[in-house]
């Protein structure tokens, strides 16, 4: 298997990462290597095996939809790189 530069560019767009030309080449090569190693899992016969998303049997946890004591507006906005009044400021969409 080999990952093309176009594939790397597509994945980078999905992941919202701008990559340099050097990074594209490096990642294409390294992802190949890592996935080749990871491809070992295909050897195992998993017919009829259920996938595990969680190691312990945790089922849905419900709670009352009550308003609790949460962060106030100023605390929530304190780390924002940009704000406008009571909102996060962002570049034009």
């Amino acid at each position, binding site marked *: 298997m080999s990952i093309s530069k176009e594939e790397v560019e597509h994945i980078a767009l999905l992941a919202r*990462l701008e990559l340099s030309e050097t990074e594209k080449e490096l990642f294409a090569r390294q992802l190949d290597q890592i996935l080749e190693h990871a491809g070992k899992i295909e050897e*195992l016969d998993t017919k009829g095996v259920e996938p595990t998303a969680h190691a312990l049997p945790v089922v849905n946890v419900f709670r009352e939809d009550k308003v609790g004591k949460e962060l106030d507006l100023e605390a929530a906005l304190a780390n924002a790189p940009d704000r406008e009044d009571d909102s996060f400021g962002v*570049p034009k969409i």
Partner: protein
Amino acid sequence: MDLYKLTIEQAAAKLKAKEITSVELTKSILDRIEKVDGQVKAFLFIDREGALAQAKEADKRLATEKDGPILLGVPVAVKDNICTKGVPTTCASKILNGFVPPYDATVIKALKGEGAVIVGKTNLDEFAMGSSTENSEKQVTGNPWDLKRVPGGSSGGSAASVAADEAIGAIGSDTGGSIRQPAAFCGVVGLKPTYGLVSRYGLVAFASSLDQIGPLTKNVTDAAIMLQAITGHDTSDSTSLEYQPPNYLDSLKKGIKGLKFGIPKELFGEGCQDEIRDSIQNMIKLIESLGGEVAETSLSTFEYALPAYYIIAPAEASSNLSRFDGVRYGHRAKDAEGMIDSYKKTRAEGFGSEVKRRIMLGTYALTAGYYDAYYGQAQKVRTLIIKDFTDAFEKFDLLISPTTPTTAFEIGAKTDDPLQMYLSDVCTIPSNLAGIPAISIPVGLAGGLPVGLQIMGKHFDESTILSAARALEKEVDFKITPELAG
């Protein structure tokens, strides 16, 4: 006497007997940090002022509370991927430059409630992704036993701070070995609890189904003390389990006699250093001499644990790290044209190379067309690994292995080869995939570097792990004696 050398147990006794005050102890630790951290570089942030204020509070409580918590007045260090209100939390990443959490993680609340003094935040591989702490965007931490070598990772700063007597105890997080592997490299005790035993609320998520917070300490008793303090159900973490923990200190007395130990031969594979193998063989003899039974066993799916992990963890990470977009906190790229461009540039500038690599890997593994072959298959492999553990624990009380196939390697030795780096977690990863608890304790030196023994147990059976670890520790009598100039 150098107060910074005390264990939690010793410090607590002296504090309660009024032989020392928390302010004296905290000052001793802060002075020690000032003296040696220029070499070790374990800390990303030292909270001198905050620590002394907390110590003063602790002294007030010590004066009035007769049976106060054990950790009352004891200085501890915290890995910098755990949120601390009003104290910078960076995950050793540029993308969180300037971020000051508006709240405390649940474990921090618990530690503060007990009256522990938080002296600072420790270095890590960026977002806990790595095995050497070299992926930190801030600094490279040295192993106190040999500063040219890595402390392990990703909780390398926490492990190094304890080994270098810069903290009496520390907190780390473990996704694939990130507490146990650095504990082994630095000659300290590191415990990864059962998944769900300790709340993850306020721990910056790497791989949510694998991450777990736990202690790094100078000995097993201290690990039991810290574990007790941070354990408990938390409604803020829906994966936190409702479970009434036992008294872990009481369980330390049970010893080893009659316990059945299994040795999965897959964890002694090629790549395991001879000296490490010898060290573990000695432990087997010791267990037998203490009345434990030891037998080799095979857990055939274990050879698939590492490859499965390197699909599952990056996949979860790629999703978790999408929150770092420069909108609500942290770094934001300048001069971006529109929103998408802002995301792309912000993340390109903010993330380091290993984090980008794992985001790419995880995104790839989750894309349509590859999902079943990689992520789906890895999750099925996870089921088989859990079954292997379940079967083994019908025959054995505990499983043992080396914590790491090698001792601490030199700084720079594996940075160009991600796969080689990943291999140093080969013994620790299976327990994360199965959510079981596991400890690493130092059992000797090989070429002047510490060797760690890993003990794995059933879900929620930290008690048996701790009792066996304590029994071995008493006999081994490992001394944390790195030669630090200064």
